[in-house]
């Protein structure tokens, strides 16, 4: 029987194009120190450390947990490193949560990061082994055809992506950590930017960020002693499927549907739009909001774009998506999933500041990665399950 697990501390760095003022460990320590402070703990209170990041090629460091052990106070403790592609920030939080749920530890520090300015992500994502075709296109080139397929399938009008690009950047203006802050952001502004990978325009993509996000996860007894409200974990799920095979639905992958069904079942949710108060969902390209609205069951098939167009997912709507500004506003790749999980926790703790959704009590954190084939999700709530 799993032990209860709660988020008692969250720490984030400011997300920026370049953080030349800090080393890689300096970046992680900035987030970790804030999480510890939030939890009212010090480094010595931590039982184990779980870190996550996207491919090693991004910074040119392999086995970074070895080097980072010193800076993260892990000498004499267990430290491990998770890598599940873009979903890694979420998966890392789930591995840390299992250490508490499995009764192994009481207080686990988990940190996900990327210092993209140390390398070139599009290059690192495109290196291929011999005898396989290199598309030399990065993530945008890979996902653009899937978005085009969604538009054709759903009959969505061309401007829906633009609405998401504007909405998430408006939210980012309320988030002190967000990378992209574009005062007066408007549809005209988005539509005036160059087409990168048709139908994705420049302002419909995520930025490249340096940044780290940390959380302290605690057992029930440890959570009871925390100085601030806890976000209780109500459900956790991961799913993976192969990247290429005939008949695979790349627009609404089965793995995403199954993962959502699993996490909803654990949390006792049958109607996510009605029963969740907000969601932080991995939307690196604007069109992924309507696509994931359908995949995650917030509406019927073909209806996602209508929900976005109606304003339901805005901060003032009935089901705000990405009140933090989302991946479209801050994208330290390996951390982007954990930021979703952490922002969901901040919402149900009532600690999201200016982008707080009034009275949020249950929230979804979501991450995906690879060729939309790896999924990690959790549901957190104000109430102890």
């Amino acid at each position, binding site marked *: 029987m799993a032990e209860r697990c709660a988020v008692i501390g969250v720490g984030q760095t400011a997300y920026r194009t370049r953080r030349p003022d800090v080393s*890689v460990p300096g970046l992680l320590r900035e987030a970790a120190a804030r999480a510890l402070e939030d939890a009212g703990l010090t480094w010595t209170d931590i039982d184990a450390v779980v870190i996550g990041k996207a491919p*090693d090629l991004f910074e040119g460091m*392999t086995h970074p947990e070895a080097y980072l052990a010193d800076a993260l106070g892990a000498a*004499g403790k267990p430290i*491990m490193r998770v890598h599940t*592609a873009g979903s890694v920030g979420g998966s890392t939080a789930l591995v840390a949560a299992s250490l508490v749920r499995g*009764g192994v530890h009481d207080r686990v520090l988990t940190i996900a990061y990327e210092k993209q300015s140390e390398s070139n992500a599009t290059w690192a994502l495109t290196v291929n*082994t011999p005898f396989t075709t290199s598309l030399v296109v990065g993530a945008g080139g890979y996902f653009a055809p899937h978005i085009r397929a969604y538009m054709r399938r759903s009959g969505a009008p061309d401007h829906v992506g633009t609405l998401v690009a504007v909405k998430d950047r408006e939210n980012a203006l309320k988030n002190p950590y967000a990378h992209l802050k574009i005062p007066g952001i408007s549809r005209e502004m988005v539509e005036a930017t160059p087409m990168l990978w048709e139908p994705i325009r420049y302002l419909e993509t995520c930025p490249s960020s340096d940044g780290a996000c940390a959380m302290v996860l605690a057992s029930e007894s440890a959570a009871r002693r925390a100085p601030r409200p806890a976000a209780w974990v109500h459900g956790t799920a991961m*799913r*993976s499927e192969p990247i290429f095979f005939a008949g695979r639905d790349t627009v609404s992958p089965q793995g995403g549907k199954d993962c959502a069904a699993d996490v909803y079942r654990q949390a006792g949710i049958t109607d996510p739009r009605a029963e969740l108060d907000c969601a932080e969902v991995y939307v690196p390209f604007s069109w992924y909001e309507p696509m994931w609205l359908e995949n995650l069951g917030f509406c019927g098939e073909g209806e996602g774009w209508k929900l976005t167009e109606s304003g339901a997912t805005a901060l003032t709507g009935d089901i705000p998506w990405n009140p933090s500004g989302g991946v479209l506003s801050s994208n330290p790749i390996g951390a982007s999933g954990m930021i979703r999980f952490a922002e969901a926790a901040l919402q149900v703790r009532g600690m999201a500041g200016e982008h707080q959704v009034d009275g949020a009590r249950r929230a979804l954190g979501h991450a995906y990665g690879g060729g939309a084939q790896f999924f990690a999700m959790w549901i957190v709530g104000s109430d102890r399950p």
Partner: protein
Amino acid sequence: MTPPIAVVAFVQTTHTGHDTGLSETELLAPVITEIKERTGRKRFGFTCSGSNDYLAGAPFSFVAALDAVGAWPPIAESHVEMDAAWALYEAWVKLLSGETDTALVYGFGKTSQVDTAEMLTVQLDPYHLVPLGVDGVSLAALQARAYLERSGAEEDDLTAVAARSRAAGRANPYALDLPEPSDDAYAVAPLRASDLPPVTDGAAAIVLASGDAARDLCERPAWITGFDHRADPHSPGARDLSRSASARLAGERAGAAGVQVAELHARFTHEELILREALGLGDDVTVNPSGGPLAADPMMATGLIRIGEAAARVHDGTATRVLGHAASGPCLQQNLVCVLSGDHDG
């Protein structure tokens, strides 16, 4: 009360000392097929793997490996960019939480396509050590020298470890067929070629199961009675290289005392001697009967294979209490100890 968890199946490739032209996915596919046949299961509650992109020289080497697993319908799956022994640890924790009762764990590596000594430079402090260009073998040699000077052991003691490991490897159909150590020149003094791990391509898989599922899947499950891993400081200057504090700690916490067989992830001869001391393994303990990493080192699977080989002694009834060890980082920086028993309560 959590049900006990056991290693119920272990499968590995016949490792090769050269590239046979198979991709990582092709190496792995028969291993996964065999372990599914062995357990009679096509699906597992959780799947977890360990691999490293720098071995393949490309990002996401674990993505293609999913093709070997048959992840359809979608599976609950995770991956560590570490030796698969840590994937086994993650799976063990998952089973502890009671969410599921079976897990498939695998790891794979082809060191034939990379200079591993040079590659391991990239795991060091990027600001202070990498610019010096210090490679994995040179760092190991520093540790070997520190150990010899502190312990009074001689280079012949290292050669004896190599000779025993290679002889055991020749008797192990899965390990490489390596000759008796001869008077090789130093690779980096005091280490000679036979003190170093061989180039190896290979893969391995383990199935974990808890409670009744374990008893259903295996006649004599190897029950995990203790599982722990610990890290030392990274900087070689910040620790006593002649000892392994983290191995000692992990061994104590996992209950290493009293094992009959120990499979140690010692990639260099001196590492075995340091680990024997840290884990308190006396002369009565059989160390690396498989030949160990000095007889086959498919990196990222090597640690997992140690646990599999140890469990296999319980499966075949030749031992009742065994230990599998895995290491990571420069100079045994991280150590993992898994103690297994033929008796349910250890």
